[in-house]
């Protein structure tokens, strides 16, 4: 019970201090609109909003969570307020779950902003929402943990931003959202299969447009595996680098 009180208060603090700040809310709204507009402008033919939805949702989550967690953690490390959390009688795994929960929730909300916009433009009635929710959640988890991995590796906030992009931009083009995996050069394909976003995007494509490749069970199993492995790796790094 005591741990849950701490968990809830850490989550609420992060929400209030970081995620619900006006610039972040506007980011959550502007980002999906900008991506959607980009495809409309780029395409010479009529664009199907539903075709764009898996990509825009995935990118909204990816961009929202990775940089947010990396930046906020680095900021708290710099101001030493993170020490206050490390000094609290909270299990380290539980503490990191509390810290990542805010970013995961932020990612979830970001993902459904394009859905809201799309609902005004097209019918979304035959979408399988349960797998969509599961995929968005797991994309948010893996992206957040990637943000944590970045936070542990850097000391300055600008490094967190730069390092995030180092991972994110290749992921956009290698995860099969915009360039089908089958059309990627052979030597790049193994890279695609080691990206969690590939599997999350495939679930979204299956559930929204029925054009996924790998099957839900395979995708969910691999994504869950990535989540557990990334959490374990992040915790190892946190213990090694932050409790020195």
């Amino acid at each position, binding site marked *: *019970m*005591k*741990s849950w*009180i*701490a968990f*809830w*208060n*850490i989550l609420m*603090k992060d929400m*209030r*201090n970081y995620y619900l700040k006006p610039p972040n809310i506007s980011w959550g709204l502007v980002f999906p609109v900008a991506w959607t507009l980009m495809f409309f402008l780029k395409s010479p033919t009529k664009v199907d909003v539903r075709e764009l939805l898996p990509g825009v949702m995935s990118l909204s989550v990816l961009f929202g969570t990775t940089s947010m967690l990396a930046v906020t953690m680095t900021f708290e490390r710099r*101001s*030493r*307020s993170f*020490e*206050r*959390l*490390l*000094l*609290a*009688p*909270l*299990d380290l795994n539980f503490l990191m779950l509390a810290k990542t929960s805010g970013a995961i929730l932020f990612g979830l909300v970001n993902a459904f902003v394009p859905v809201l916009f799309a609902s005004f433009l097209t019918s979304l009635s035959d979408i399988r929402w349960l797998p969509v929710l599961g995929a968005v959640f797991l994309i948010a988890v893996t992206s957040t943990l990637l943000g944590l991995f970045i936070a542990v590796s850097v000391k300055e906030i600008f490094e967190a931003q730069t390092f995030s992009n180092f991972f994110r931009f290749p992921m956009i083009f290698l995860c099969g959202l915009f360039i089908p995996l089958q059309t990627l050069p052979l030597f790049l394909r193994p890279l695609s299969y080691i990206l969690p976003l590939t599997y999350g995007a495939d679930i979204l494509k299956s559930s929204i447009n029925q054009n996924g490749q790998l099957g839900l069970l395979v995708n969910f199993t691999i994504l869950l595996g990535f989540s557990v492995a990334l959490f374990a790796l992040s915790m190892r790094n946190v213990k090694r680098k932050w*409790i*020195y």
Partner: protein
Amino acid sequence: MDIIEVDQLTKRYGGLAAVDQISFSVHEGEIFGFLGPNGAGKTTTINVLTGLARATSGSARVSGFECAGEIKKAQQIMGIVPDESNLYEEFDGFENLCFCAALYGMQKGAREKKAKELLEKFGLTEAGGKPFRAYSRGMKRKLTIAAGIIHDPKVLFLDEPTTGIDVASARQIRQLIQKLNQTGTTIFLTTHYIEEAERLCNRIAFIVGGKIVRIGHLDELMREVQHEHVVQLAFAEGVSNLKPSIQENYPDVVVEVPENQTVRLRSSQPMNLTPFMRFFEQKNLPVYEARIMRPSLEEVFVKITGIELQKMKQEKEGKGKQ
């Protein structure tokens, strides 16, 4: 009973030993001072004891809990006030205290009640609704200490609590430390202000270059440099002309007249003051104050460590201003 036990503790960063095989214990209910220059290993020791760093070898226990394996249990009874105020700039004073209480699992009602009490105790009630970033340095220190004791810890670690703050706030903080100790809280205090340690601490350890060079009660440490007994007598009238006559009557003592109305008597043995009092009475010069002069802790520190205090202070204050 010992509440902190440190045995042969070593902490290395690469090839450098920040703390090198130190051993000491802190008794329950005392104020224990940890004195040393910059880079001596004071903060590293606190970090190992509080769980922010892992020992390379040796052991450290707080309230019987091993800092290596049971740190989360030990943290339940610890309060920690770091050398820099590290509360949340966006929160106001009240919210900061409530948040810190929540980290120890306190229920909403209990943490709000305690936060209000502490704001009042620390003279911050009016500032309680202002954001932390708007606080003065002294107010920030006070609120950070309040945050450290919100859960009524048995042991409070205070790392340089008065560095870089104004005299009035420093004085208030020292009074608060004494009051806390009177209510049973054990205090582990690091400071570079020797006079602060002298005024507050029951026992003191000097740490230099990662090694504890001396540890003991204040009196024991003082005795190390007290090779002679000094008594200073004060008069209402000038007495400088009496110096040869006093010296002649009492050849076993060294007589000094540092000021016109003051006589200082030095002896290798404890002195019986009755003959001196009679001597001055016969001269119709009543003594209105007699004071035993003791060496200061500063002298003890300089003698034991060979470190000039002024240099140490300048280094620290320079760091505090940055």
